[in-house]
């Protein structure tokens, strides 16, 4: 019968294999930060369950403490203890060194995708009626100006999308335009990537500054077309908005 230490180790290894190797078979690989987060949770769970009662504590930690204390050890056991006591600090040292050593890799990115809009764009309402004619006009303008990057299906998979990093937004995803008000989109389309604040890394966005080419009317209608085409609704605070 397996002890709690073996079971815990198998569980941790299983979680790691699932996150690192199995999940990417179906979707994009997970970043190390997320794997680390989930592994920490799994480890916490094992420790909490293993220390719930006196007997479970003894089963989980008893062998660990006995091993580390060297109580009644001889031969291989003694050698193993010595190896752990030497290797563990070395492992910590190596980990510290690798995390502090200069590297030519770019640092982890912490870009704010939806930063706060400037004050002058807050509370703006779409001045055009949400009717079929305006929506269709918006969709036409979208097809001409936006779909090369954001895709004919509003899913961020236009023919030019592969050339950009970060990729164009996927409007069909409920985590994008559905979370935002129309005035927000108006700001992003009008001012483009260069209009982003520092935390959103304006140098990383290839979104054109459409105010140079399109009148405000076109932008508002494109917004209507986008929401309708992506089957999403803008965030509002009144149901009749």
């Amino acid at each position, binding site marked *: 019968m397996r002890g709690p230490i073996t079971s815990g180790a198998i569980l941790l290894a299983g979680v790691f294999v699932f996150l690192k190797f199995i999940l990417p078979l179906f979707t994009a690989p997970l970043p*190390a930060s*997320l794997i680390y987060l989930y592994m920490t949770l799994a480890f916490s769970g094992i420790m909490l369950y293993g*220390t719930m009662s006196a007997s479970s504590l003894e089963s989980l930690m008893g062998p660990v403490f006995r091993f580390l204390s060297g109580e009644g050890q001889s031969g291989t056991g003694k050698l193993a203890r010595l190896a752990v006591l030497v290797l563990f600090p070395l492992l910590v040292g190596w980990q510290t060194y690798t995390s502090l050593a200069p590297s030519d890799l770019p640092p982890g*990115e912490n870009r*704010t995708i939806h930063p706060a*809009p400037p004050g002058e764009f807050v509370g703006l309402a779409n001045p055009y009626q949400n009717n079929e004619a305006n929506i269709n006009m918006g969709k036409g303008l979208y097809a001409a100006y936006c779909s090369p990057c954001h895709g004919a299906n509003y899913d961020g998979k236009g023919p030019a999308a592969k050339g950009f990093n970060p990729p164009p937004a996927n409007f069909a995803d409920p985590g994008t335009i559905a979370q935002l008000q129309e005035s927000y989109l108006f700001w992003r389309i009008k001012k483009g990537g260069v209009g982003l604040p520092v*935390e959103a890394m304006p140098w990383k966005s290839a979104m054109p500054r459409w105010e140079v080419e399109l009148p405000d009317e076109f932008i508002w209608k494109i917004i209507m077309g986008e929401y309708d085409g992506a089957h999403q609704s803008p965030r509002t605070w009144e149901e009749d908005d």
Partner: protein
Amino acid sequence: MKSANQIPQSNVKNFLEKMPTLFKWVSFLSVLLLPVIAMAAGAETKAMSVEYRDVPGIGSRNLVWIVAQQHLLLAGFVLGVPIFGWVCELVGWKTKEARYDKLAKEFTKLLTSAYATTALFGGILLFLLIGLYPKLMAYLTDMFFPSFLVYCLLFLAETATLYMYWYGWDYMQGNKKAFHLFLGFLLNLFAIGIMIVPNSWATFQASPVVVGDGDAWTRAWMAMQNPTWWPVNIHRLIANVVLGGFIVGAYAGIRYLLAVSREEREHYDWMGYVGNFIGVFGMLPLPFAGYWLMREVYQYNQQMGITLMGGFLAWLFILQAMLIGVLFLGANYYFWMGITYRIPGSENSYKKPIMAMLVVLLLCLGVWMTPHTLVASLAEAQKMGGTHHPLLGVFGVMSAKMTVANIMILVTFMSFIMYWRAGKQETAGWAKAAKAIMNGLLAIAAVAVIVLGVWGYFVPAIIRINYFSVAQVLIVGFIMVTFTPLTALLLKSAKTTTEMVWGKMPIRAGYCLVLNAVMVILLMSLMGYARSSSRVHWHIYGVMRDTSEYAFSPALGYAAAFMSLNTFVYCLLVAFIFWVATLGDKAKAQQAKASMSDVPGGTPAMAGGAPSSGEKLESGILENHK
């Protein structure tokens, strides 16, 4: 007539000894502040043209940050403790159980010592604000002066009531108990008033409203009624109970670790349980109150809402999820340990449900802690197609967060129900049917919450916010409201199969209580910073711009260091206050030492009691660490 010089010294000494501690503190503070007032009077004309003053080294903003946070945390404790202290007293009065009265008195003892320190920090904060931010304070004074007077009156009433409530405790027993309870009620009433009046000043800074014409009282009242005032009032009221509960739990945990007699161990084990219960009780509705507050903030100003929830402060909410997660895990862990240690022989029967609850909590926590925008290296971001994961990115939005928060609340509530039912055998004929109905309702509730959460992705945001999220809250609330009386009714006729044994919890239970308190302090420091920084470079949002050299938002790492510092300083303060409050217990402790021979094994009891067969390992570990 005698002059002051002629008063015998012994009389002065006697008077000083008899003077209440709080009064001594206030007098001391007044003497300290006299030079400040004199300086302020002298500099009156100069002050009119000064907008800011700075403090060399630390900087004015940092100093105000520390003092304001300390004052807020102390005030949270002072306003939270009387609520459940009074409820405890009421329970003791109704059930005629003296231990509840004793516990309520112990809570109030902590309160009296903390009260003076809170006032002290309030005074320091006020003078710092007047000195360092004269322009802002002149504006706020002009707007809110009548409410300042109300605040002063409330403070006087609160102080007088607290005196009578605390010093009259032993005197107002028996027939006079009802009056004492009335005083406790008044104390809470004034305390809530003391909280909501200054809340209006702070919330006005975040969500100012247009104030029309009228006299000073009308204008102040209009300014007070800003959109975030009541959401903050409710959120703070609940959070204060949580803070008070967990701090009292930590106090009990430490006293439990230091206990030398069986009676002390039993008492502080029970007090720790009550503290944890109060903390959990408050924690259950807290996410709903927070959600309401954020909704109001978002609705008031999209820019502020996005700055908080999606902009540069969004990472604070991931940290918040981590801290709340530790709190949920810590509180449940304490409940579960209570079952295995306090109810002998129950460990095997509860292993499976505990494991199931733990797994659900961890899964929910995993979802709650998953950010919308992930931290990824360039290579990882390229593989994901951006910093937004195509599959797990759906966990980053509110629909997912609200769903798991509700499930975690359900699990925690069921943890408590399980603890309540442990060691008892229901005898009522309808018990089986009632339990089946409860299990069915629980399953339906969990499924409904999840379905609404998933459905929330496919409806307009306003439908999710106004209906789905509210429905989720109502479902969880329904379970709580129906299960609590039903369980009480079931247990009324139940027979006890195993008596609950107090004073047997292990050492880690005491540390768990302390950890929970530290987490809640850190959490309040974190969200205090979030609320304050959401105004970005405005003293009063959109009205009065911050033109000082500190008109920038500090980096998150810098802010996190300050939150940690604030938490550490507060823990030191609380430790000092509690140490002072329990100085009188030393004599009792001496007596208790004499009764050490009562302790099994004849050794001073570490938490969890003297070593017994099942706990030898823990004692061994402790010995090794000595």
